[in-house]
């Protein structure tokens, strides 16, 4: 009597070769997939006057980022974006949009701090401080003293900073941007739009190349 399954294949070598082929196929496919920068048409709103941005408002190219200050991946990208703002800040409009994720405890409160700083003209400075020091405030029991210290170091009016951070209009602004992002298909942070395409470049060089091609 044959062992169960013996009759399934004319040759015993077939499943071993077929199985090995499947494993190899997965290796090649995933190697290519994880190395390629994703790109798809953007469905998020075009830049508008009330967007927080860096660079000329009438620039022919806009780079939009939906971000969450408590997202470690966004923090990794902040230095890349800083380098790009330095290089292309005179030709490209860099737009920042809030997309606080529900699974990040301090995502919304940090977004409020950044928005409050923007009302005193220090958004990008606060943006950089929040990402550079992400670990300290995101792992604390209360991040507000950290935000206050950043605001102080930037010379902000603390009373106005607190009032703006707590204002309903601030909450509404953040919620509106997040809702528009969600409607536009944003599923993760950071979410980048270069021109009309959603992209996820893996390095400064890749990002730089995308911008050069779009200009």
């Amino acid at each position, binding site marked *: *009597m044959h*062992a*169960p*399954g*013996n009759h*399934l*294949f004319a040759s*015993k070598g077939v*499943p*071993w070769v077929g*199985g090995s082929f*499947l*494993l190899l196929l*997965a*290796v090649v496919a*995933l*190697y290519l*997939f*994880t*190395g390629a920068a994703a790109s798809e048409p953007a469905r998020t709103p075009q830049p508008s006057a009330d967007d927080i941005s860096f660079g000329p408002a009438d620039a022919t190219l806009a780079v939009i980022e939906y971000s*969450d200050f408590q*997202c*470690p*991946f*966004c923090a*990794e990208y902040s230095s890349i974006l800083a380098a790009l703002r330095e290089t292309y800040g005179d030709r490209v409009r860099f737009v920042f949009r809030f997309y606080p*994720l*529900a*699974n*990040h405890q301090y995502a919304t409160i940090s977004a409020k701090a950044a928005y409050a700083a923007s009302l005193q003209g220090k958004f990008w400075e606060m943006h950089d401080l929040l990402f550079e020091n992400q670990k300290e405030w995101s792992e604390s029991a209360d991040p507000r003293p950290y935000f206050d210290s950043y605001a102080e170091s930037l010379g902000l009016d603390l009373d106005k900073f607190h009032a703006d951070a707590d204002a309903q209009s601030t909450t509404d602004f953040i919620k509106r941007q997040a809702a528009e992002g969600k409607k536009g298909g944003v*599923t*993760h*942070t*950071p*979410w980048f739009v270069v021109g009309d395409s959603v992209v*996820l470049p*893996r390095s400064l060089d890749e990002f730089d190349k995308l911008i050069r091609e779009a200009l």
Partner: protein
Amino acid sequence: MTRPRRWVPWLLAGAAYAGFVISLYLTFVHYRGYVSPCYVVHGCEEVQTSTYSVILGVPLALLGTIFFAFMFYLGIGLLTASRVLVVRVYKVLAFAGALAIIPLFLLQAIVLKAFCTYCVATEAIMLLLWVVSFLLTAPERARATL
């Protein structure tokens, strides 16, 4: 007399292949030096970037890839020649895999307080391999000599 369940090796090989693909993806992500972005659903970044994702310099994802590749080939072994030794080795490894789930799951739940969807999926597959391995039956002739 129990009839051999022919779908069992197919299920085991298929599940191991799924585990292999997920673990391989995480391995590539690890070695390419980036993490998956933070998704709206509970994020992977806390888990993938934690110090616990590497043991003695070897990423857990790579160990998972090797484990699932081995289980996949054992599954093929069960399909082609369901020998007692293959069944025994399969059951032992499936049990070892199920044991490994405990610290991995507790790390996510208690220490990291974050669940990585991909990691949970591979753990579920390991559990499935162990549970389904109970349905493996040794060939009759070989069993008779046991």
